[in-house]
């Protein structure tokens, strides 16, 4: 290789629409708006008794005089006026003229501010009456049920109509390169069917011209094309735009290309699919061949009929598969609309994200989880790939059938994921769905080595020239999967919209739920108040009157008195419960007022109250260091009251009961421990001791509501503090509470 890259992509820059020449089988004259002859091809002298240079600057009528005199003078001007008026020459073309006693066709067209007048023979290589046969041909062509059959028929019918040696249907693939997918030819010719041609063989601007002119004839590659003369008065030579010209001369590179192939004459018909160039019917002849305007127009008609059949057949070919995809999509969107877990809806059923494409593997990256289906890369590879996608996906969708070409590490798992189709669900969250297709080793038969377009001549000089050899050159393509179809991509986009919609709806649902929760919370507030007032008032009445009755009524016997005491005890217990529940719910809605709390006095106060209340005489109560604790005083009091109450209560039967409280400071926390030698907590209950109304098996015979530790836990959580417990049955319990230090 040399530093200087020369390849046929340079063809891209060749201005093939302004070659400045015409093919030799006809001649061209161009007139301006005033119908003054501005250009004429030199070869006019071969057809008419004049020189091109002599005509320049003359009125177009000068041309009429040169043509046979039976024509009324002014006919060209009239044709031009008519065409200009109707903005089309379609109904006028071709206009028959006789030159040298032979029928010729005048073909008119407009290019910029000029009108082209092209004269070409009416004689044609085909003897068939095209108009008679065309109807039958069309029905023959369309008889094919499958696309392949349709195209085979088309090649055969075109061959019969215009009689070239070889008719090929040439299809453009995604990357612009072409493949011969149908062929009908003379038996002695070597088949080209199945051969691929690099995109550079038909450069971009040539493809553009194929879209504008649906037929193109090259009569004889060996004929010298004829230069077009312009008016000298125009100063610089302004080349005439021959985009619409039928006679337009051929690029020398293309001529060379055809010569290298051994082709002498070619004719091509454009096949369009939804306004894009889908392919060509390429006709080759190995000797010069010309077909007249009418035959070309008939061919164009066939091209158009095939084109519209293509739209239909191309769709039909995929219809069944697409129906499946669509059904799967519908099922998934139904599932999503039902609500519930989104990930589950699209991955956990028989119909899942895999079913909307032809992929063999798929992953869903959603809510920090990767869910895999089918054949996917290993976990580590997958994670890296997902990260790469998150970083590099610009659009909501990305796909390639050659992932290892863009993402090197994919070479290690090309067997499962050479093709990838990914769509983002949420860019911020890095959520996405990706589908995989495995590597498909394929062999491409190129018509000649497509990578060697440069010819080195006898002197060792590199020449830009099409390759000389069209011998089959095989290439094995690795790291490629089957391509993603338009339908697969469309399906994925639709599914993505549906999933995103479901995600948004769910977010809304969560917001609504939040609102409801808030409402319920407020109702709980009201409830607490009701409990506090409305429940306690009648309770008071029960207790008051029971006591009053007991005290003031002398006629009660002992049994009645005992019963009344039970009523009173029940009322007391109920009162205590109500108070505790109230305390519990109050923690939830109270605002914290943080202060530094003197723990020595707080603990002493609680202890004194408890000793009286619980009536424990021999309690050994020790208080160690008591560093300041930062928290809400009322609530911290509640925490220690509950913990100390438990410690004293559950060690009451030990001999003697011992309770020790001490605090320690770490760099971030103040940690208090409350240590007792009581009955202990069963290890299995550690997790449940903080649950509301949960009391352990070994506390029977001890007063309690099962609310105390639940309150403690709630307060601790409210302070963003920590609580944990160490305990052994029959030995004792240590509760630890750790509050953040005041900073």
């Amino acid at each position: 290789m040399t530093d200087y890259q020369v390849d046929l992509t340079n063809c891209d820059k060749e201005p093939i629409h302004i070659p400045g020449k015409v093919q030799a089988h006809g001649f061209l004259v161009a007139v301006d708006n005033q119908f003054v002859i501005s250009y004429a091809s030199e070869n006019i002298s071969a057809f008419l008794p004049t020189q091109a240079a002599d005509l320049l600057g003359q009125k177009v009528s000068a041309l009429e005089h040169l043509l046979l005199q039976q024509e009324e003078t002014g006919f060209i001007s009239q044709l031009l006026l008519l065409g200009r008026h109707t903005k089309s020459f379609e109904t006028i073309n071709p206009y028959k003229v006789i030159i040298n006693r032979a029928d010729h066709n005048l073909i008119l067209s407009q290019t910029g501010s000029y009108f082209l007048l092209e004269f070409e023979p009416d004689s044609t290589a085909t003897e068939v009456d095209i108009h008679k046969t065309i109807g039958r041909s069309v029905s023959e062509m369309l008889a094919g049920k499958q696309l392949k059959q349709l195209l085979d028929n088309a090649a055969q019918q075109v061959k019969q109509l215009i009689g070239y040696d070889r008719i090929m249907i040439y299809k453009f693939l995604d990357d612009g390169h072409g493949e011969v997918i149908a062929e009908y030819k003379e038996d002695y010719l070597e088949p080209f069917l199945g051969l691929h041609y690099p995109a550079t063989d038909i450069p971009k601007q040539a493809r553009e011209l194929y879209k504008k002119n649906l037929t193109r004839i090259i009569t004889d590659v060996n004929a010298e094309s004829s230069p077009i003369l312009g008016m000298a008065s125009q100063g610089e030579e302004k080349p005439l735009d021959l985009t619409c010209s039928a006679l337009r001369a051929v690029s020398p590179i293309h001529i060379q290309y055809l010569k290298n192939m051994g082709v002498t004459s070619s004719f091509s018909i454009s096949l369009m699919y939804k306004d894009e160039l889908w392919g060509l019917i390429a006709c080759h002849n190995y000797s010069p061949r010309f077909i007249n305007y009418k035959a070309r127009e008939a061919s164009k008609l066939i091209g158009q009929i095939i084109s519209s059949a293509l739209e239909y057949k191309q769709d039909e070919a995929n219809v069944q598969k697409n129906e499946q995809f669509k059904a799967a999509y519908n099922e998934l969107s139904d599932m999503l609309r039902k609500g519930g877990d989104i990930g589950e809806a699209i991955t956990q059923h028989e119909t899942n994200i895999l079913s909307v494409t032809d992929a063999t593997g798929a992953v869903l990256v959603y809510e920090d989880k990767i869910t895999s289906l089918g054949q996917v890369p290993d976990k580590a590879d997958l994670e890296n790939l997902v990260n790469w996608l998150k970083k590099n996906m610009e659009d909501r969708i990305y796909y390639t059938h050659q992932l290892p070409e863009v993402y090197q590490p994919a070479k290690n798992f090309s067997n499962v994921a050479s093709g990838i189709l990914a769509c983002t669900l949420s860019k911020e969250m890095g959520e996405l769905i990706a589908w995989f297709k495995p590597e498909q080793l394929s062999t491409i038969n190129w018509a000649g080595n497509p990578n060697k377009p440069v010819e080195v001549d006898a002197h060792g000089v590199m020449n830009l020239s099409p390759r000389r050899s069209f011998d089959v050159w095989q290439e094995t393509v690795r790291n490629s999967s089957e391509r993603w179809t338009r339908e697969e991509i469309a399906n994925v986009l639709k599914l993505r919209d549906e999933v995103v919609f479901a995600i948004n709806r769910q977010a809304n649902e969560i917001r609504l739920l939040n609102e409801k929760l808030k409402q319920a919370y407020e109702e709980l507030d009201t409830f607490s108040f009701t409990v506090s007032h409305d429940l306690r008032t009648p309770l008071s009445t029960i207790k008051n009157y029971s006591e009053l009755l007991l005290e003031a009524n002398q006629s009660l016997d002992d049994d009645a008195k005992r019963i009344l005491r039970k009523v009173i005890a029940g009322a007391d217990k109920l009162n205590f419960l109500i108070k505790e529940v109230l305390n519990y719910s109050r923690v939830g809605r109270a605002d914290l007022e943080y202060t530094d709390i003197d723990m020595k006095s707080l603990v002493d106060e609680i202890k004194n109250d408890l000793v009286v209340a619980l009536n424990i005489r021999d309690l050994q109560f020790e208080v160690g260091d008591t560093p300041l604790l930062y928290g809400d005083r009322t609530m911290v009091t509640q925490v220690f009251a509950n913990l100390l109450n438990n410690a004293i209560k559950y060690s009451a039967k030990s001999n003697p009961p011992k309770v020790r409280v001490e605090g320690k400071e770490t760099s971030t926390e103040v940690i208090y421990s409350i240590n007792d030698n009581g009955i202990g907590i069963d290890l299995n209950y550690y997790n449940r001791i903080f649950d509301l109304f949960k009391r352990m098996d070994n506390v029977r015979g001890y007063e309690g509501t099962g609310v105390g530790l639940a309150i403690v836990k709630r307060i601790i959580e409210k302070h963003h503090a920590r609580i944990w417990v160490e305990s052994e049955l029959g030995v004792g319990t240590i509760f630890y509470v750790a509050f953040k230090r005041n900073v």
Partner: protein
Amino acid sequence: MAVPDILYVEDNEDFVDVVERAIGQIDGTTVLRTIDDGALALNTLEKLAEDKAKPKLILLDLNLPGLSGLDLLRRIKETQSLRYVPIIMFSTSDNPKDIRSSLEFGANAYVTKPLGYTNLVKCLSAMHEFWLKTSSAVA
């Protein structure tokens, strides 16, 4: 209209009944008047004030029809002739918020209604002892 020693504003009949019994048990001579409506209570107090009379002690429940206990408290403390009458908030609630706002509005004490008749008698006799016997000297 006799000038009451204690004005008790309470809408719960049962409470009114047991408090009357308890006061009767503590001291048969103490005049207790109960009113079950906040606005009516204010009205009564204002009429008494016109005659330069006032109770020795006011007991207020928090939740009252007409005018809430707290509002009534505020209005009494705003009335020049009544502001030195001791007022005890007497409620079932032990909510710190209720207690704090009562004291802020100028209540002289906040007593949570004790549970049970026995406790009530103890509680009221302590109040009687402190506020009726000693406050007469202040008034």
